[in-house]
Structure formats: C-alpha cells, structure tokens
C-alpha cells in the first residue's frame, strides 16, 4: 500500500507541521505502508496548461506520477481567503478527471479560526467527489491555538490525527478488498 501526504501550501507552517506529524503517526503504526510527503513549498509547479499529466517533466511530472501511483492520499491544506490555496487547486487541475478513482483520500485542515470549519466540506469535498475519490468522511480541523512553536499542543488534535490515519489505512484495505472481490466476479 502506498500513501502519499500532500502539504498543500507554499506559505506558513501549520499545514506543514500537521502533515509532518500525520506522516510520523502513519510510519510509526504501519511500517508496511510505503509513505511519502510532498510539501508543495519545495517544488516549482507551473499553472496547468491543459496537457496530459504524463507530458509534464521535472518536478511537476514527478509529483503527478507519485500521486497517480498512490493507493491513498492524505491532503493537508490551510484555508486562504475562505478557500483552499491555489497551489493545491493547481495540483487537481493538472490531473485527469478520474484521477482519484479507486483511491482513498482523507483531509487535514488548518485555519486561522474555527469559522472556516465548513470550507473543507463545501469546497474540497466536492472536488474530491468529482474526481471519484473514496473520501474518509471525518477530517481533522485545527486552528491557531492548537499550535505552538511548530508543534501540535492540543491532545484532542493528536488523538484525531491518530484516528484519521487508522481510518485511512482501514478504508484503503477495505476498499481494495471490496474491489478485488467484485472484479473477480466478472470472470475476465
């Protein structure tokens, strides 16, 4: 099983901190899972110009391939101007419409205040649904007061991240099993 984490912003530290911790929990508890963290701040990715994802080279081509080969994604995003950042949307824009088919996707959201709690529900989930993801319904939302010196200081957030990681792995295994059983019945 391959699980890829994406830290979806080029600005700030909360999402990066949250994703670093999430991947740490994943590695500690599931040593058999192949993991990778993509921090978009480390890459120069142009805006999508409509070409097929296999036709991109360099950083962009590499990231897109890693995402497409993953069985599950854990997407970390801050909320900017009441929405997900353009850097993250740009990744979706580079991918084919059915890119998330047969992939499990879970979400880790960071924001300046609790007032942005529903942004993931209203803006990120519709994109993931459109791209055919199997969404882990419960996401982890955290805000300014949950961090101090680039550390998570709220135990409630820690417990929720642990549950999110467990749910992501469980759903990925379950979905793969369901699909294999179903496909075996076609007989071809």
């Amino acid at each position: 099983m391959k699980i890829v984490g994406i830290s979806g912003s080029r600005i700030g530290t909360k999402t990066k901190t949250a994703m670093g911790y999430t991947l740490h929990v994943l590695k500690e508890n599931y040593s058999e899972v192949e993991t990778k963290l993509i921090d978009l701040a480390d890459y120069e990715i142009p805006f999508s110009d409509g070409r097929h994802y296999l036709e991109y080279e360099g950083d962009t081509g590499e990231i897109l391939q890693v995402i497409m080969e993953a069985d599950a994604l854990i997407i970390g995003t801050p909320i900017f101007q009441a929405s997900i950042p353009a850097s993250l949307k740009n990744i979706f824009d580079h991918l084919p419409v059915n890119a998330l088919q047969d992939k499990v996707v879970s979400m880790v959201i960071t924001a300046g205040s609790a007032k942005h709690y529903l942004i993931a529900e209203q803006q990120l989930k519709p994109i993931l649904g459109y791209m055919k993801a199997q969404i882990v319904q419960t996401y982890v939302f955290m805000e300014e007061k949950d961090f101090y010196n680039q550390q998570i200081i709220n135990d409630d957030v820690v417990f929720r991240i642990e549950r999110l990681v467990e749910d992501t792995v469980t759903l990925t295994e379950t979905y793969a099993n369901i699909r294999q059983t179903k496909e075996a019945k076609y007989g071809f």
Partner: protein
Amino acid sequence: MEKYRLDPTKGLEFGLYTLGDHLPDPHTGKKISAEQRIHEIIKLAQLAEQAGIDFFSVGESHQDYFVTQAHAVVLSAIAQATKKIKLSSSSTIISTSDPVRVYENFATIDLISKGRVEIVAGRASRIGLFDLLGYDIRDYEALFEEKFDLLLQINDSEQVNWEGEFRAPLKNASVLPRPLNGSMPIWRAVGGSPASAIKAGYAGVPIYLAHLGGPATSFKQSIDAYRGALKQSGYNPTDFPVATAGFFYAAETTQQALRDMYPHINEGMKLTNGQGFPKQHFAQGAHEHNVMNIGSPQQIIEKILYQHELFGHQRYIGQMDFGGMPFDKLKKNIEIIGTEILPAIKKHTARK
C-alpha cells in the same frame, strides 16, 4: 455522398483502424520490434482487404509506445500492398503540420493507390507533439481551425490564395500533385463533446467520431447536434456521411471476448494514458446498448445494427489491435469479420 466516395445503397461500410501503438503483450511483457509492428500493420491491411473490409486507417501519435508517427509513409506502403480497400489517416494532426505538405503527401498516396485515399484531420488528444514540433499549445483551438480550413481550401481548388496567422500567405499557389479525381474526402475528427461536431456542421464537412465506451445514445447527441448545425448553415444533412470508431473484438462467446481483450486495453491504457480501464466500465461494454463492439459475432452484429439504426451512420471503424494484441488473434478476428459479421451487416443495411 458521392463526393465522399460513399454509396449508402450498398449498406454500412466497415473498417478497421490502428493508432500504431507499440505496446508489450501484457501476458508475456514482451514488445515486438518496431519493424515487425509496422510490417504487421501493412499485413493487417492486406488481410482486411482480402476479407472484404471496406476501409483501413492509420493514426498519427507522437509519444512513447507508438510507431506510426510518419503515418503517411506507412499508408503509402499499404497503398502499394493493396488494390481496392479505402485508406485514410485517423487522424492526421493538422494543428502541428503544414496543410500544404499534408495535402502533397496524401494526394501522392491517392495517386499511388489509384484514388483510394481520404484524410481525417484532428486536433491531437495528447499535446506533447506541440513541444516536439515547435508549437504553442495556447494556440490549440486556433491552430486547428485555421489549418483545417486551409486544408479544405486546397482540396477545393488547385490555385490557392490564402492568408492566416500561423503560416506564410499563399498567392496563386498551386498545390500539387492533385488527387486522381481532383479532390479527396476530408473528414473532421471529433472527440467527446458535441462542440467539435457542431463546428464540423457549420463548416459542412463529414465527421469521424471516436467512441471509447459508454451508452450509444449519448453519442447520438453529438450526431444530432452535427446534423442540426449542417441544416442551420444551409447544408443538406443527407449529403454528409458520419463515421464512428471504437474498440472492436470478437470471440466465440462474449465472455471470451471480454477476457481476451481486457488485459490488452487495461495494461495498454496504463502505459499510454497513466490510468487503466476500469473493469466495471469494460464489463458494461458487453451490453447491447453500449457503444463498444466487443462480444460474440452475433452480439456484435446486433450491436452494430442497433447503432446503425440509432446513428444513421455510413461507416463503422473498429480498433482491435490496441495493447500488444498478438497477430494471430487479429487474423482470427478478420476471419470472423469476413465470414460472419460483414455479410450480416451488409444484408441488413443495404438498400435494395
């Protein structure tokens, strides 16, 4: 229809197309040489002709796992190796080519083949060739519309006066040689959405529709929109043929056909497109109202006749060689087409 060398009284035309993909056989992981693949394509056209198949076309694709980038050169060899089967591109990427050069090539093949050649011009489904050939993909739409229009003008008259954005102007230019009968059928390749089909209708050109899978009724929308646009522009829709193209594979039973073809389509799509073909969608391909013509000979006959009734099209073109399909399986399919499928289709679609 005569302008497009089609006689609907003889029934639905049946053709084969290859994209010239050069993929490993998923069962062995082995890829034949480029030389062998090109010769097998030429041989496939010869066998198709012997089986009474009406049409054979070769695609242009500039990316990994393809071998017919110079598709006009391959068609030229097929022209020499055959006598009566109609030949075409499917498609020629006109956006990134010079229409004068394309016309010169295809008019020459028309002379070699004694008047059997057509051009299907498309916009490119993949755009790596824009970088390869020195074009800007921001001009994707404009390049196609301008160059396709010039190609049509060259076909309409030997002397061309033309000015555009992407090519030097032509002043009383003669584009030679001329095809055997003065002009050639030129079709517009149309993909998913009806928008492109509607443009073809406004321009008064025949359409060649690619159908990968899904309900046949949803493709009818494009065809209806096309005929509506023809009418709106003052053309008579009955003067313009429609061709449909998609996956084809026949075996003794429908289940066997699905089993034979699925690994080739799925693994081939993974390599060329980055995503396999979902098994669930492929399984639905066997449904009588699904546009994929995969199944037992009887099932395929019924499907093609259903599509003919629905679309009122003049030509169906099947793709059966995708994904490293072994040549003996292709030969077997051609035999089935010639002995079982073609006679039934012609019998039911010819106007007595």
